[in-house]
């Protein structure tokens, strides 16, 4: 029986839908459950994962330094890994900021992620936006995929493209995280619902994360929101997703708009028409 870890790529096609936020929070959540997790930032040139984890000051070596052809410049994989001081089960393998997506090949990515599975339960690869070289590099070593999208036609269209590309390269059965949902807007018919998105993408739903201001605040602070002692609904959603990844059956959060008090109930009466 193999005890080596899983390589999961977190991708979307569209930029800005929450891949890096998802990677950071899922990584931290899985680590808090006792799993050994390494986050691999595959966004060369525009790296963000180190910022969201608050580890940017500690980046010395990047993934490129472990692959350097020049023996003097090359470092060991464990030298490049940054261990999170808050959560020792979590490590980050940073991307290079001064190079771009052409600096690494899919074969090299495969080799690095394979080596990481020997010491980690989960290797989460944060994929860059787009479908070009960066995307191809990121999916190279992955055995599973998580597609992140927001409930907007453009994001869903791009997610569909990415799912098709992955299916064609053998990375089948990706699972979906629907991010930045606004239940109020869905109720007012101004935003796509979970069903609308699933109707088009037709993949298994891993979780739904509601829109949350805390994402901005925690990103700026470099503290993934799942670390909070009082997790918001969005943070709770990430925690539940981590449990589902581990195989647990967790019911989906009810994201109804809380109607408290008399005015709330009155409004609800009118809304139901």
């Amino acid at each position, binding site marked *: 029986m193999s005890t080596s870890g899983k390589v999961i790529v977190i991708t979307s096609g569209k930029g800005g839908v929450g891949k890096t936020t998802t990677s950071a929070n899922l990584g931290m959540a899985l680590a808090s459950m006792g799993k050994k997790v390494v986050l691999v930032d595959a966004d060369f040139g525009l790296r963000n994962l180190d910022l969201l984890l608050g580890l940017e000051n500690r980046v010395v070596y990047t993934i490129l330094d472990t692959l350097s052809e020049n023996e003097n410049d090359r470092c060991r994989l464990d030298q490049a890994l940054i261990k999170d001081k808050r959560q020792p089960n979590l490590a980050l393998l940073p991307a290079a900021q001064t190079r771009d997506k052409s600096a690494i090949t899919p074969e090299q990515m495969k080799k690095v992620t394979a080596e990481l599975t020997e010491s980690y339960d989960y290797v989460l690869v944060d994929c860059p936006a787009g479908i070009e070289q960066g995307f191809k590099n990121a999916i190279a070593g992955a055995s599973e995929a998580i597609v992140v999208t927001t409930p907007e036609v453009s994001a869903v*269209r791009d997610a*569909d493209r990415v*799912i*098709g*590309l992955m*299916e*064609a*390269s*053998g990375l089948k059965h990706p699972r979906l995280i629907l991010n930045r949902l606004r239940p109020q807007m869905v109720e007012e018919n101004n935003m796509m619902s979970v069903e609308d998105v699933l109707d*088009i993408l037709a993949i298994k739903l891993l979780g739904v994360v509601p829109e949350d201001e805390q994402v901005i605040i925690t990103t700026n602070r470099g503290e993934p929101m799942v670390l909070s002692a009082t997790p918001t609904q969005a943070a709770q959603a990430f925690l539940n997703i981590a449990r589902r990844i581990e195989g647990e059956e967790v019911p989906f959060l009810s994201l109804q708009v809380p109607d408290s008090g008399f005015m709330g109930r009155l409004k609800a009466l009118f809304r139901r028409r």
Partner: protein
Amino acid sequence: MLTASSVHQVIFKGSPEGLRLYLPEDTAFDEVLLQLQQRIDAGERLWSGGGKVSLECGQRLLDGAQIQSIQELLQSHQLRLTQVSTTRHQTAVAAAVAGLSVDRDLQERQPVTSPDTPVVEEPLYLQQTIRSGVQIVHNGTIVVLGDVNPGGELLAQGDILVWGSLRGTAHAGTKGNENALIMALNLAPMQLRIAKFVARAPEDSPAPGQAEVAYISDGNIRIALLSEFGRRR
């Protein structure tokens, strides 16, 4: 008659000896592998296991590594590459080295029909969701058991039947046949084209769940409920 030079995309065709896999001549190899994976996924249910596959390359150059990639892809679906047909010496050598039997035509077999009559192939049957960015081109009718998502395109010389939701673009009668039809269980396309006519879906469409057919009448594309269309004919 189907020749390698007449295919624009990867095509599987049944024959008494097994499956024939036609590769388009001008497409980049990465794209060929992508299409091959899509076609295998979409058609898998209809093939029995242990299928023998003969590769028709025509003028296309293939090296040892490329032949091996194709072999591996087929193997992962219980299909066996047994023969390569080619007009090129290099390809023949690469195939021989890979241990495959080679059928070498010094010049390609000429089609029996004249070049002007369009070659109509058997219907292309795809069991999958056609996702955004995927384009399917076929010299015959296309049948999709699944949805066609926005951004997906079907180009058929014959009819187009979508046993699901058609939300992408469908072009039937690509070689000029104005009698071609486009049918779907849920017709909600980005664009419909029949022969040289183009149309968008109307703003007021009937409730979903009603199968509809698009056809040409009086120089326009019209849409009718499938049940009514049957009576009209």
